[in-house]
């Protein structure tokens, strides 16, 4: 057992500052050894793991940056979605859904949160086209509007909202847009696209 708090005998003065010759605290040394041990184990394990994931994904050079983790997470997610039961709306059911007041009022909330920046607070058009006039760039039928909202026209700046909001909210937004047709608005944007009755 070493003596505690023994002053280190030196010839130097250190401007009057003395130093004890204490040993390093045991717990501190174990902390240090523990960290070094962790580092020694983690690095080879992790490098090997991410390499294996990248190789399994077939991504090759594209995946040099942690791509392995990404692929693993996407695969988990895809499997989960494939297993989830889905309900599809078609034909009259779909039209009924789009015309129902509940969908329209739900859609108004979605529209105000996500669409007004480009289409204006009344749908009069700003960056994006006017949604209240009878002119349509990509078709004005309920199905066409739903498709435009859901899948977007990314080249023109219209996002695929289904990927952002989910299909439920995207469908509600479409319902609200359909309800806007023919509404009178102040300062409407000039017509774009083809006239539809």
């Amino acid at each position, binding site marked *: 057992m070493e003596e505690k*708090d023994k*002053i*280190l*005998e*030196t*010839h*130097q003065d250190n*401007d009057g*500052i003395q*130093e*004890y*010759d*204490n040993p*390093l*605290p045991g717990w501190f040394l174990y*902390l*240090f050894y523990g*960290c*070094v041990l*962790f*580092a020694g184990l*983690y*690095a080879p394990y*992790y*490098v090997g793991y*991410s*390499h294996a994931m990248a190789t399994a994904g077939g991504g090759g*050079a*594209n995946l*040099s*940056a*942690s791509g392995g*983790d*990404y692929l693993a*997470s*996407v695969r988990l*997610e*895809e499997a*989960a*979605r494939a297993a*989830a*039961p*889905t309900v*599809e*709306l078609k034909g009259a059911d*779909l039209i009924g859904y789009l015309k129902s007041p509940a969908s329209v009022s739900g859609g108004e909330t979605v529209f105000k949160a*996500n669409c007004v*920046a*480009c289409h204006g607070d009344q749908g009069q058009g*700003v*960056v994006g086209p006017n949604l209240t006039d009878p002119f349509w760039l990509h078709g004005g039928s309920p199905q066409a509007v739903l498709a435009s909202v*859901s899948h977007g026209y*990314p080249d023109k700046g219209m*996002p*695929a909202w289904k*990927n*952002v*909001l*989910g*299909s439920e909210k995207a469908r509600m937004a479409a319902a609200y847009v359909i309800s806007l047709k023919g509404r009178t608005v102040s300062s409407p944007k000039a017509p774009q696209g083809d006239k539809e009755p």
Partner: protein
Amino acid sequence: MLRIKYDDKITRMFLIACLVWGVLGMSAGLWLALELASWKFNLGLPYISFGRLRPLHTNAVIFAFGGNAIFCGVYYSTQRLLKARMFSDVLSRIHFWAWQAIILVGGIGFLFGITQGKEYAELEWSLDLVLALVWVVFAINFFGTVARRREKHLYVALWFYIGTIITIAVLHIVNGLAIPVSLTKSYPVYAGVQDALVQWWYGHNAVGFFLTTPFLGLMYYFVPKAAERPVYSYRLSVMHFWALVFLYIWAGPHHLHYTALPDWAQDLGMVFSVMLLAPSWGGMLNGLLTLRGAWHKLRTDPILKFFAASITFYGMATFEGPLMSIKSVNALSHYTEWTIGHVHSGAIGWVGLLVFGMIYWLVPRMWRTPLHSQALANAHFWTALVGILFYVVSMWIAGITQGLMWKEFTNEGVLAYPNFLEIVTKIIPLYWLRAFGGSLYLGGLLVMVYNVARTIRSAPAFQDEEAMVPEAPAVPAHAAPVAQYWHAVLEGRPFALAILTTVVIAIGGIVEMVPTFLIESNVPTITAVKPYTPLELEGRDIYVREGCYNCHSQMVRPFRDEVARYGDYSKPGEFVYDHPFQWGSKRTGPDLHRIGGKYNNLWHLRHLDDPRLTSPGSIMPAYRFLLESKLDLSLTPNKIRVMRQLGVPYAKEVETECRTQAQTQARSIAADLEKDGVKGMADKEVIALIAYLQRLGTDIKWRETGPAAASIQAPAPAPAVAATATTSTHPSKGAGI
């Protein structure tokens, strides 16, 4: 024995400069905090918009407040530890005045957008060069004093000063290498992944060797002095000094987890950061345990209060740092306010409180007058402590809120908060709390300035302190008991110590950088990636000038939530022409790497004119002036020439035709805007910035064919309602683990 005088005038000069810059730098910080709480604090002025003011704040507090504090303490303690006046009074004065001039000129330059666009290394090449020379002056002055010392062995504080002087020189020079375009503009020699690695090797070690090692040195001098107690353990100081300087240098890549930096470098950065915990705590232990036997003095002595709290914050920050460098923690914490909280617990907790304690200790000795008011010093301590707690806790909450909300998915498999602004507006109350904490901290500093000013006013005429010193260095201590430790030999040979330190700090950097530069597979080439057009290059320079990187990243990490929110994750080969890289370190606003083509030109124009037009609730400053200022193409040929020198494959004729090319592209964007009713933009700066933003992330065709695009569009596009979702999409299952 010999009677000598220490140069105390220089200590007093640095002390006052430290206080002046502290007030300025922290006021800028408080203003920035207010700008985040309400965008109106940008006042519509380009000069103080967030992106330009933040470099002023960081540089002023690190290099002006911190730097002057270091020099103040180093000049005071070195002379006394070596029993010698500084090598040259003239060099001391040159060091002082040149340092203040660099900060003043550089700081004003930041307000005018003169910046290299690399965090904490924003100074342009011309000032970088002056800074390097001043550092050499400091080194000559320091080592000259060492050579003339009257004390054989160097005390631990001096080892830390030596480590600082050497490492900062290496970091500054390697990271600062650039080719000038004009006096106020240059491009770094590195691009993309390499630039990121060098920058964060520098950036992290600016923390390590500018905000840690010199202050540990000051701690080793001033804490035992103030406590009048021996240092707890000599052996611990030897161990933690060498472990700290060796391990620190490797840790930089933890700022680049999950980015396009090669995985092996990230892993090295992480494990070395984890190992760094122990030597950092070695410093904390030696500081706190030195206070054993003096704890009762804390009740009355504000200086020891400052020191004890400072060292405690050092321990907390150096626990938090390794924690945040663990990749799966970093997946959540990176780009969030948590990082801001972390650096401030180090900066205003550890560094700030240590500096305040040191100044309260020095002022009565330097001006030979008791401190004007102990009560005000105590009040300063409590105000500062409460201020830090408000600051750090609000940023913890804000950061974790951001991280979790960014990553949250609904059961249907889409982002729960697809609108980035919803997350921004959620944390605004915390921005106000942070500003409150910051104003307390600044208020405390102002109390100190008053206290010091009153003390100085009643001080007698100035005299340098005199000391009786031996005429020659003390006899070598071979026979003395200290020789039982091998390290004592090194302490008697400062130049050997300096060289050994250089070797130790060089290893980490070399191991991480050389393969990243030389081995091609680390940055696989993508043939579709082409150099920016002249107009886009000008736009990029505006992006750098306005400091957009202070709030926006350009690095989509390979996580499900980021791919869903921004687009395909970023590939290393996409950044090969980015001098400098602009990956950023913070997402106050969304990532911009895949912004190209997401919106049309009109959207960008309106958004820059006033972000609230397109994005209600946005806290971004308005960049209306970009719609009014004329695009300056006078330097474009020079810029293309420098880029060619850097290896960017522009054809030779681009150098002569670049202006015409830029004008042609500008006209085509202006024509598109004109269709939407906006006229007269063809020669405005905003056009170049839009051109750059629309180019970002579009070289690879990720929207149509990228693997990520395919996977986020699965399953088939038929409208489907997830009636029941059976799996959790909690981020911890999806990403980062």
